């Protein structure tokens, strides 16, 4: 009896009992469907976190002012105004092989007014390399130039949310609006970035030349900078860049040995690591759930196969009488179990993919069905079939044909 024949005989036996075959496979179907769906939703979440981290900038590192310490009381990060525009410029000059681009950043904000509309938003003052550092292009119009920074021109680019709220969605290029009664001309509109991982709308923003924000909006205060943003050539240089940056800042700020840093360097690896550790925890949890589901499904198959062997005792006896060797009987029942499980696996995959899509659509979650999860589920379900089908098949093959033929 060759492989094709065994396959055919098993398939016929399954088709003779369609309803029972389906019910038997149900455990596997739902087990696999659950695994596929949960993995797809988990992968979707983790890929959206990753893309958000990536969207923050191109190999980005950020320097914040140090925590304020007054009379032994620590303030929050960036509370101390210690950073200067020149700190970053000298870093860029000294380490061109590490730093690809640099921009200082100052924050301000306020009510902005255009005709009868007004809107409260944040204003950031930066250099033109901001576009490179934050990987953020203008979708419409243009960014301001180095000349605009030199002359502290009252120009800006704005995010999509501002366009929607202040200009009712009409093209704002060339229009002038006022921030605290100071007129700003719109040069361009930034491409849409959406909300970040904290749920903040990143498109609710006005970007103006650094000098303009410093002199015009933050009038009179010192030339201090809130953040220095650097873009590295590659993430491999991260440790070296952080080391050199820290040394350079300590030297420029004239910090004696043993004195605490008056700045904080942060990079995206910590956030990435956190996201990765959450997703790997998810993976472990899912693996546990999957094994339990498959175990239950497998036991279901074993159960029904045992019933099936008992119920088909006379068939087994007849097959043996007309020449089926014990091995042929074993293979027939094993193949039946494996086919049930594999078929269940395929149906489960289909159900899982549709389920995940549906849940994703209803909740607005991103869903990513990975090839790996499909292949592994498929392989696992067949393995479960073989594993749990073996015992019933062995029992069938060891039956005595005389007893089987007499069985009522």
């Amino acid at each position: 009896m060759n492989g094709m024949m065994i396959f055919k005989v098993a398939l016929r036996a399954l088709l003779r009992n369609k309803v029972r075959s389906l019910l038997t496979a149900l455990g596997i179907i739902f087990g696999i469907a659950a695994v596929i769906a949960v993995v797809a939703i988990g992968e979707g979440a983790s890929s959206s976190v990753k893309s958000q981290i990536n969207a923050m900038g191109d190999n980005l590192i950020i320097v914040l002012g140090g925590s304020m310490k007054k009379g032994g009381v620590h303030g929050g990060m960036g509370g101390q105004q210690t950073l200067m525009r020149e700190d970053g410029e000298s870093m860029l000059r000294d380490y061109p092989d590490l730093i690809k681009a640099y921009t200082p950043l100052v924050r301000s904000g306020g009510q902005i007014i255009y005709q009868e509309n007004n809107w409260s938003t944040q204003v950031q003052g930066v250099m033109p390399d901001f576009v490179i550092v934050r990987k953020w292009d203008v979708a419409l119009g243009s960014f301001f130039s180095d000349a605009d920074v030199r002359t502290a021109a009252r120009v800006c680019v704005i995010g999509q949310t501002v366009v929607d709220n202040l200009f009712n969605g009409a093209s704002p290029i060339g229009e002038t609006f006022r921030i605290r009664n100071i007129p700003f001309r719109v040069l361009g509109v930034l491409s849409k970035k959406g909300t970040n991982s904290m749920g903040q709308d990143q498109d609710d923003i006005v970007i103006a030349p650094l000098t303009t924000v410093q002199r015009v909006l933050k009038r009179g205060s010192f030339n201090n900078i809130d953040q220095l943003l650097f873009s590295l050539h590659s993430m491999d240089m991260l440790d070296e860049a952080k080391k050199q940056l820290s040394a350079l800042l300590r030297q420029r700020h004239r910090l004696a040995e043993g004195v605490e840093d008056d700045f904080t360097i942060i990079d995206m690896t910590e956030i990435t690591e956190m996201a990765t550790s959450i997703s790997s925890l998810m993976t472990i949890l899912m693996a546990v759930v999957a094994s339990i589901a498959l175990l239950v499904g497998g036991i279901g198959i074993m159960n029904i196969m045992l019933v099936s062997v008992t119920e088909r005792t006379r068939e087994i006896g007849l097959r043996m009488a007309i020449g089926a060797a014990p091995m042929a009987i074993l293979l027939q029942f094993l193949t039946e179990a494996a086919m049930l499980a594999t078929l269940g696996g395929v149906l489960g995959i289909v159900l899982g993919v549709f389920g995940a899509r549906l849940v994703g659509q209803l909740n607005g979650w991103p869903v990513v069905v990975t090839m790996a999860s499909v292949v592994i589920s498929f392989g696992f379900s067949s393995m479960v079939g073989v594993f749990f089908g073996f015992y019933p098949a062995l029992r069938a093959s060891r039956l005595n044909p005389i007893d089987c033929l007499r069985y009522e």
Partner: protein
Amino acid sequence: MLIDIRELKRGYRMGEQEVWALNGVSVQVPYGDFVAIMGPSGSGKSTLLNVIGCLDVPTSGFYDLDGIPVAGLSRAALAKVRNQKIGFVFQNFNLLARTSARENVELPMLYNALALRGKALHERAETLLGQVGLGDRMLHTPAQLSGGQQQRVAIARALMNNPPLLLADEPTGNLDSQSTRDIMNFFKELNAQGQTIVMVTHEDDVAAFAKRKIVMRDGKVVS
């Protein structure tokens, strides 16, 4: 000699006691014979049939089937002998339910390594069903056939691999008298064409169709 059985014993353990279902049986069946094995229940005729059919193995003694000493063969080897040397006909037909007559007839060929496949297999099954007079019911399932028709499907199945021996266990036990006559006449016809048949029965009028009778009592052949 197709069947050559000498001094065959088959014992069972019943608690402490050894019970001899077959207690020194010698039977020779030449090619082309038609034998009816008779005897009261408990006489050992079923056990003899099981041993002849290679479903059971003797405790001691010799048994050559078509020149093959089958007494010491493994289960797998016995399965092959059953497949190629013996065609079984049972009292309760033993057809696969929800399976067409043709598929039932084809079944022995699935376990035959040198077998017909595909179209040739269908054709052989159809020819055999034609011979037993069921050419118009090939795709009927057992539930759609009468008892006599079911037994005829079973006979077609038994002939599938062209075995030298046709072994029938009370083949008419579940049939009415008309069907019984039909089946026995068909057996007689097959025998006339050279088919060797060994049949167990307890009905004299059925045994009358055979060429000769072997009567058993208490595990021994008495005549």
